[in-house]
């Protein structure tokens, strides 16, 4: 190493020493960004891996799985498939979510034919005292997780709901199943009989003859299947689950990356201010012969070093955080996709490397502009006092910033890529970068319009900022980004919450709601139950709902059919329709109202027609309108219950909406229902209770979002504080002169506090405006394309005002603390330092 290189490195080391606090903060910010991203990624990967492994175990050696709607399909299909020459073995399965009296969560019960399942899915065979137990209709075999969850052992009884009655099984033994999977296996005939599925199957696991082509067999089987029944490879189910949750996972990843971006901005401000501080030293090195490239390399190296240390800390912290997240929020971080799953965390070197690289790249990226600027600076000019602001000259041109904003506008409305709002995210990134590049110019424009204050202290503060907006605003980059994120998320969440609240009002017009179970639940209301409910004392009117889950198109996530007692004449008033509704056809034409997710996925618009598989037949429905549905992400269709019953012969219902007679009390009607069906058989709730639970679920889903948001704001605020501190220390001599001229310490403090307040107000104003713009993209592009949910834009004025006031106060206090530190020393010594 050359002597000049040694000197240069010594100067850089000295700079690290002098900026120890700020360097540590920047490192910590990178660590936080890397840690959050890695933790979220690890939790998501673990959840998907657990789900995939569970599916693989349960599928056993099956090459293909024939799957039908949640209420099953005709078992005659089994006979046709089993006789196919390419099929070595086929195992029919009935799968239900067994409703357990007194529990909110259901137990997945699988009915298998033990003689056939052994050849395809041996993991579904229970282990008990006697092999014959596998064939007994009153036996159930439970996975270890289910045994623990239910607190049962072999020989105990398990009572599950069948309709509004109970079916009882004896625990015959255990079952091999992945850790955490709650599962029970019963005899298939017993399941069909107990759960009203005689002659119906949920799926068929198929093993192909060795040597035969799986694809050919699949095609042959597909050709013989009724509408709504599909054939797929076992892995595709796990892939579908991953696809269904991908938008949510990507959203969280992006939020974590924003934290990393904020960290990168903190590195930028640290390095930019450090370059300003070392400008004369670097000019000296350049004068002594250090090449430009080497100087830039050293400064970039500083950034990369911050990134490397931050990434290492982040990975260690991220792994620990993932463990905590998993235990607090669950495998899906609160979204409810993998409820009940308890996966083990797995370490992925590839993922760790990716996040380490991201951390280093973010930090080096943050150091890039200051490094280039320092390398390009003229040593002669840099050695002269008062040249500091020229470091920020590169930010003076509005062209790069404006180009970013124009590009953001150009791409924001482009359609999603693979179901993800790639261009929406890119537009947000461009808006952020564009605004940050324009920040000094925006700050100058705002500061020029601030009326001249009366107090000398405030005048000095304003003059100082007006003369050097670059130095002041560079410290704002991180806080502007963080405020913009927090504001945009706050607006988006408020818009979503208020829209959800209005939607719940529209969807819950009755006085009481009764639920027996979901689409694949073993709880249902038979016609006689429905008649009993409709004629209960105190009930003026009752409407019933049948919930079905069907596959509308092979490879797609299931669509929910809601067969409702809806009056087609007044449907537009009852349903939360969006856009224009088509005139409802009169006569015998079947009518459907599709959710936004369904409309987006299948291009259904009012006036067009769609096909839905009902009882094995494809039935054409005229689309009469598109409605807003916040409950089902992969699409739902409302059809008239009468038409559904006529087409399917299925008159059962899952839910009931009850309007009470004048003077009737909800409490007494609840008691009557309880007496009629027995305790815990059906769930009765008022609209207020459903609303409260729904909003609680909503808040839980966004809990992780709030955490990430708070972290980004904290990083920004810490960055601002560190920048204030650095700037205040760099101006100690100026404060010394002012103290000589008769300014009290308090006045110097007030001046810095005023500067901090003004700078923060500028940052806040820009952050609020930028956050508002980003929220429009989040609401109308990101959410719409990710989850197919439209919502009305709402501005939580009180919340934003509180956030602004808190940030302004914190920033001012921070500036005051920095001033106190900077003026704590001797004014005499301060002016003795080189000017």
């Amino acid at each position, binding site marked *: 190493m050359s002597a000049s290189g040694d000197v240069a490195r010594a100067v850089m080391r000295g700079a690290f020493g002098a900026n120890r606090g700020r360097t540590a903060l920047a490192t910590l910010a990178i660590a936080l960004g890397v840690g959050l991203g890695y933790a979220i990624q690890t939790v998501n990967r673990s959840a998907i891996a657990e789900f995939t492994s569970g599916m693989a175990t349960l599928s056993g050696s099956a090459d293909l799985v024939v799957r039908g709607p949640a209420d099953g399909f005709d078992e005659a299909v089994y006979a046709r498939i089993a006789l196919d020459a390419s099929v070595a073995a086929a195992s029919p399965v009935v799968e239900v979510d067994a409703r357990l009296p007194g529990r909110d969560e259901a137990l997945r019960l699988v009915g298998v034919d033990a003689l056939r399942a052994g050849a395809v899915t041996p993991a579904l065979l229970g282990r008990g005292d006697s092999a014959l137990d596998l064939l007994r209709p009153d036996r159930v075999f439970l996975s270890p997780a289910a045994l623990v969850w239910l607190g049962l052992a072999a020989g105990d009884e398990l009572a599950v709901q069948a309709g509004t009655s109970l079916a009882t099984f004896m625990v015959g033994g255990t079952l091999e199943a992945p850790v955490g999977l709650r599962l029970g296996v019963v005899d298939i005939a017993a399941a069909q009989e107990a759960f009203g599925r005689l002659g119906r199957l949920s799926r068929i696991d198929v093993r192909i003859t060795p040597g035969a082509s799986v694809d050919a067999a699949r095609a042959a089987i597909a050709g013989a299947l009724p509408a709504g029944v599909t054939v797929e490879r076992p892995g595709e189910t796990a892939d579908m689950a991953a696809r269904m949750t991908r938008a949510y996972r990507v959203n969280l990843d992006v939020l974590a990356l924003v934290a990393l971006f904020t960290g990168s901005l903190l590195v930028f401000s640290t390095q930019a201010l450090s370059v300003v501080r070392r400008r004369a030293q670097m000019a000296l090195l350049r004068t002594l012969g250090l090449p430009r490239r080497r100087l830039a390399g050293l400064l970039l190296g500083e950034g990369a070093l911050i990134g490397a240390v931050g990434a290492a800390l982040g990975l260690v912290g991220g792994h620990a955080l993932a463990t905590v997240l998993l235990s607090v929020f669950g495998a899906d971080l609160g979204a409810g996709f993998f409820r009940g799953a308890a996966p083990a965390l797995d370490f992925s070197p590839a993922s760790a490397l990716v996040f380490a690289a991201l951390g280093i790249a973010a930090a080096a990226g943050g150091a890039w502009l200051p490094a280039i600027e320092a390398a390009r600076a003229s040593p002669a000019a840099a050695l002269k006092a008062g040249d500091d602001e020229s470091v920020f000259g590169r930010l003076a041109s509005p062209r790069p910033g404006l180009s970013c904003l124009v590009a953001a506008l150009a791409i924001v409305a482009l359609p999603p890529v693979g179901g993800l709002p790639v261009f929406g995210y890119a537009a947000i990134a461009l808006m952020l970068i564009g605004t940050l590049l324009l920040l000094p110019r925006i700050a100058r424009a705002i500061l020029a319009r601030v009326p001249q204050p009366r107090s000398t202290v405030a005048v000095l503060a304003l*003059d100082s900022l007006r003369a050097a907006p670059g130095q002041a605003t560079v410290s704002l980059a991180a806080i502007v980004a963080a405020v913009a994120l927090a504001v945009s998320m706050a607006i988006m969440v408020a818009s979503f919450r208020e829209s959800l609240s209005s939607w719940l009002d529209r969807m819950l017009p009755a006085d009481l709601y009764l639920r027996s179970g979901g689409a694949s639940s073993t709880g249902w209301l038979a016609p006689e139950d429905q008649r009993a409910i409709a004629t209960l004392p105190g009930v003026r009117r009752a409407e019933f709902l049948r919930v079905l889950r069907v596959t509308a198109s092979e490879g797609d996530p299931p669509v929910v059919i809601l067969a409702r007692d809806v009056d087609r004449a007044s449907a537009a008033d009852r349903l939360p329709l969006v856009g224009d509704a088509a005139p409802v056809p009169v006569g015998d034409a079947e009518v459907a109202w599709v959710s936004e997710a369904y409309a987006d996925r299948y291009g259904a618009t009012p006036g067009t027609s769609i096909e839905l598989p009902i009882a094995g037949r494809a039935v054409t429905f005229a689309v009469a309108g598109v409605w807003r549905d916040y409950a089902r992400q992969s699409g739902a269709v409302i059809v008239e219950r009468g038409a559904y019953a006529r087409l399917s012969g299925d008159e059962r219902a899952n839910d009931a909406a009850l309007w009470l007679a004048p003077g009737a009390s909800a409490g007494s009607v609840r008691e009557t229902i309880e007496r009629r069906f027995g305790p815990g058989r059906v769930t009765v709730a008022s609209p207020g209770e459903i609303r409260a639970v729904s909003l609680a679920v909503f808040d839980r889903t966004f809990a992780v979002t709030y955490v990430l948001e708070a972290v980004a704001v904290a990083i920004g605020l810490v960055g601002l504080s560190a920048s204030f501190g650095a700037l205040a220390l760099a101006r100690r001599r100026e404060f010394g*002169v002012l103290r*000589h*001229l008769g300014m009290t310490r308090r006045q110097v403090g007030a001046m810095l506090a005023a500067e901090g307040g003004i700078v923060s107000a500028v940052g806040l104003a820009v952050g609020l405006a930028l956050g508002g713009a980003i929220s429009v993209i989040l609401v109308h592009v990101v959410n719409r394309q990710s989850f197919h949910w439209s919502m009305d834009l709402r501005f939580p004025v009180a919340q934003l005002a509180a956030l602004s006031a808190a940030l302004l106060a914190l920033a001012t206090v921070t500036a005051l603390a920095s001033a106190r530190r900077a003026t704590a020393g001797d004014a*005499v010594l301060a002016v003795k330092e080189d000017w």
Partner: protein
Amino acid sequence: MIRLSGLARAFPGPPPRPLFSGLDLSVAPGEIVAILGESGSGKSTLLNLIAGLDRPDAGSVVVDGAELSVLDDDARTRFRRERLGFVFQAFHVLPYLPVARNVALPLALNGVPDAAGDARVASLLDAVGLGDRAASMPRELSGGELQRVAIARALVHAPAVVLADEPTGNLDPRTAASIVALLRDTLKARGATGVLATHSHAAAAIADRVLVLAPDGLSPAAVHR
């Protein structure tokens, strides 16, 4: 105007290094006194004691009738603001204020309205030869010009005493000569008392009285004018 009695000050240790002790000095109103001494002799420390920026280990400092050692920090700050002017070796002109605003700074800190102060600033800038540079920024000025700004700033609020610490230390000999001449002329024109700390005999030559600072106090010195 200035009375120093039995003044003692040491650099804090360990071990403490005595700068001077038993120092006495009286400066009459309107008089200009130059303190000569080698680097490290305590010239700047003496000025800081007179300015109330430092406290003596022993003795008293009375400036314009005020005993500084009994004043608290705020009172000494007010005292400096109203009655003292400073000229530094490194100029210390605020880089973000134009020349006129830099000169007006003491007036602003003393609460003098802009309208009343503008004429005084213009007059001072004319007096130091910078009447046409009022709107310039400090970075556009040479070292000599910056020191002229500092002199104007030191006098704009009509202080009783101006303290100048090595005012020519950063200037070439020709500029230095013009600056000290200007300093003397402006001080005399306004009847202000001046104390000038310098190691330059040429600079000291403008003073009415020249003293040499030694550990045992001040003694008169002969300089060629």
